[in-house]
């Protein structure tokens, strides 16, 4: 079940809210776990057992770790292996088989890829590592831990939530009128961002990346820009909805995006993009390896390992690994004189640099092969006899110019002051939420919900053509 679907908002969510709020706050982990497992089973009726097994194993391992005095590292390692085993087998088997020259076996192997396995596996490993480090004592009840791990707001596409951030909140998540409205506003804006903008961009992006012929200069730039916008608006919209859903349930998630296209360097980009993933790799891989407090050789080793793993986390393909290493290289260089020179440039140049490096990276990320990535990236520069425009670029611009302007405005943060003011007035206890603000935002929520629903319904609308033939 995806968030931007009518069955989620108009069938699942009403029942989930009813079940959740009918129960006293201190018992809400039960209905939360139940509806979350149902949500998961909707897409994976059999593999729901895997996530349950993960919850059981990690809870037990966590309790053992809390009590153990000896062999704690061994227990942690066993826990990590038990977590990684299904992820590695289900997600990377075919990749490894192809790598080792067994493409024929890979072609015959059809392993299921459980929804959200990368997300909940990392959440579970983070939980165990924090207990091992004695930063936290974990959950004292299985139900609360299982609710944390399977909570439907973050289950499909994150954010990667840490136990230390929400564990206590799940003990007795109370109804909070401010969070309730805040959540609704985040959900409605997320719905609109995804259905109206991101999904419409995807239509053209898919066509552009499926072109058989080499693109013109304009088409290559359009492909890069439109995909950069699509992936940001799509992913951030999902996070908006996840954060909003959690807020309505009385749980506060951390933000996952902070206007990444404002970044002026690769390092800054990753402090603004998918922050929960970046911080996970920093805290659980990079820093334990020594982080930046090592000599240059080890620093580069640390960067390359972390960024290769980051790429691999996104998908089992060399283009993803290359994309990760691309950022590792840039971040490493930015720690040298290169970075100092960059910081001395005018702000607008730095900003352009930030946009371009993100864009180039997205071309690599989106391409199905290195050849396609090379084709598009080389087409970005007016070299040789490549045409400046073609029928595709003219068509896409003609059809999508309004959408593009809107997408760029949103990605650039046109709504940021308004959203920040809303958040400040609504969530900070010292501030007031006036009747005018309340009514205005209520109207905004209703209008965005209706329009987003219209687009959701239209996507699924495929009429049977009378006498089609």
């Amino acid at each position, binding site marked *: 079940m995806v968030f931007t679907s009518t069955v989620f908002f108009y069938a699942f969510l009403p029942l989930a809210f009813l079940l959740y709020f009918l129960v006293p706050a201190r018992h809400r982990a039960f209905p939360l776990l139940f509806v979350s497992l149902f949500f998961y089973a909707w*897409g994976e009726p059999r593999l729901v057992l895997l996530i349950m097994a993960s919850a059981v194993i990690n809870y037990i391992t966590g309790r053992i770790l809390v009590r153990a005095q000896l062999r704690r590292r061994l227990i942690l390692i066993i826990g990590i292996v038990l977590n990684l085993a299904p992820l590695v087998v289900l997600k990377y088997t075919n990749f490894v088989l192809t790598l080792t020259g067994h493409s024929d076996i890979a072609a015959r192997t059809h392993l299921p890829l459980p929804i959200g396995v990368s997300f909940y596996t990392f959440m579970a490993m983070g939980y165990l590592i924090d207990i091992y480090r004695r930063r936290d004592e974990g959950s004292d009840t299985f139900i609360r831990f299982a609710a944390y791990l399977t909570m439907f707001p973050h289950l499909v596409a994150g954010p990667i939530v840490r136990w230390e951030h929400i564990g206590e909140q799940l003990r007795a998540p109370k109804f909070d009128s401010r969070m309730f*409205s805040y959540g*609704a506003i985040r959900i409605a804006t997320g719905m609109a961002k995804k259905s109206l903008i991101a999904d419409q961009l995807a239509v053209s992006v898919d066509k552009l990346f499926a072109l058989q012929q080499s693109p013109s200069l304009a088409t290559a730039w359009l492909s890069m820009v439109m995909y950069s916008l699509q992936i940001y608006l799509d992913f951030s919209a999902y996070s908006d909805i996840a954060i909003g859903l959690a807020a309505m349930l009385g749980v506060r998630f951390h933000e996952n995006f902070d206007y990444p296209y404002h970044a002026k360097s690769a390092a800054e980009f990753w402090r603004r993009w998918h922050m929960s993933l970046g911080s996970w790799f920093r805290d659980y891989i990079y820093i334990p390896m020594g982080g930046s407090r090592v000599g240059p050789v080890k620093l580069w080793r640390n960067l390359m390992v972390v960024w290769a793993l980051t790429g691999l986390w996104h998908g089992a393909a060399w283009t993803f690994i290359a994309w990760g290493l691309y950022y590792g290289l840039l971040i490493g260089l930015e720690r040298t004189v290169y970075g100092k020179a960059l910081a001395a440039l005018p702000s607008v140049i730095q900003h352009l640099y930030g946009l371009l490096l993100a864009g180039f990276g997205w071309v690599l990320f989106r391409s199905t092969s290195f050849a396609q990535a090379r084709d598009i990236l080389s087409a970005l520069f007016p070299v040789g006899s490549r045409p400046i425009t073609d029928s595709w670029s003219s068509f896409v611009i003609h059809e999508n110019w309004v959408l593009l302007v809107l997408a760029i405005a949103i990605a650039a943060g046109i709504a940021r002051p308004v959203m920040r003011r809303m958040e400040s007035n609504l969530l900070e206890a010292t501030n007031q939420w006036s009747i005018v603000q309340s009514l205005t935002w209520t109207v905004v929520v209703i209008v965005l919900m209706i329009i987003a629903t219209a*687009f959701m319904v239209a996507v699924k*609308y495929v009429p049977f*053509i009378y006498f*089609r033939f």
Partner: protein
Amino acid sequence: MKKTLTLIRYALAGIAFVLICLLSFGYLTQQNHTVKSFLDGRVLTEFHVPTKSTFLDGSWMKETEGYVDDRMVGRRLLLTLHAAVATKVFRSNEISGVWIDRKTGMLQEDMPVLAPIERLDAGLTNLQAITTTNHVPLLFVYIPKKQEAFADVLPKNWDNVYLDNKPSVLAEFAKHGPVLDLTPTVSDKSTRMKDWFLTDHHWSQYGAMAASTAVRNQLNLMGLPAPTALPTMDISTKYPNFIGSIGRRITTAGVPKRDPFTVTWSSKSDLTHCMNRSIHRAVCNDPIFSKARGYQKDVYSNRYGTFMGGDNGIDDLRGNGTGTYIILKDSFGDSFVPYFALGAKRVVAIDERHYSGEALSKLIADVKPNGVIFMHNQLTMSTFTDHEIAAWR
């Protein structure tokens, strides 16, 4: 009281959100009855209680998603809102796979994936053998799709698979008999806007009339008894404007102009019509034009079904004119056949998708036609199943 009001003030946006979800859910629970939608052209999905197997294989979930999508409160309005936003706010000319020519109002639908024509070869060989054995001439009539008639105004980046495939289709026809390509007849720039519906994928009655004249002329060239020339159409029946098959994909808000629909006929017509009845039946008076279909209230109703009441397995039209023909047709034939039959002695039209009567060879032996006309468009032929191909036996 003050505390409650403060609570409501803070929670109002959230309350509105939840209320909309709850009310929509409540509406959905009351909709599980059989509904045939004019907009969708099908019976809307119904809700079924899950069983263990339908849950475990995920089919119940897909069906339930279909149910919710189909039965959403205000669904038609929502689809209209989508079209309005897409065309008027986002200024798109292509939405939901439909290309909108805002100046003329002509709608074109996106290109399908076509199966190779060669898979029909065995069936067409069989058809040729039957007609040869019975000493009945065979004529292949190629019906162009709208995207072929208006190929010059489609977006340049649309790959026109119909045009790309056409040479191989005509070659396949030519292997089995003489061919008449109707493309020049119905793509003439001076008449094509009248020959095709704006919002439907079919040709209009004017296109059908032009096609019937072209086929008559071809039969004359082949030395076969052809129906006499079309008489003056002195009867006009005006039906309500409608939105056809392509327009339904983008609803009223996306459609610049609805199709006017006036059906003309001749007072001199002496045709009788047997619809889905035995060819041995002596007398029938089934209407040639279905007023019930023509006057349906819903703007999305399938008004094209006015012609002969829509797709029938078999239509048998008899008059006092010249020429007896068996026509193997698709829905384009629904409008073609009446105008072709005007001036004919007998026309038996078979729609292979809905026909399960006697074998074609027996039909030929009983009807004793002057010729068999095979007239289809590429999309029909691309999607023929073994059932349709077996009809040419």
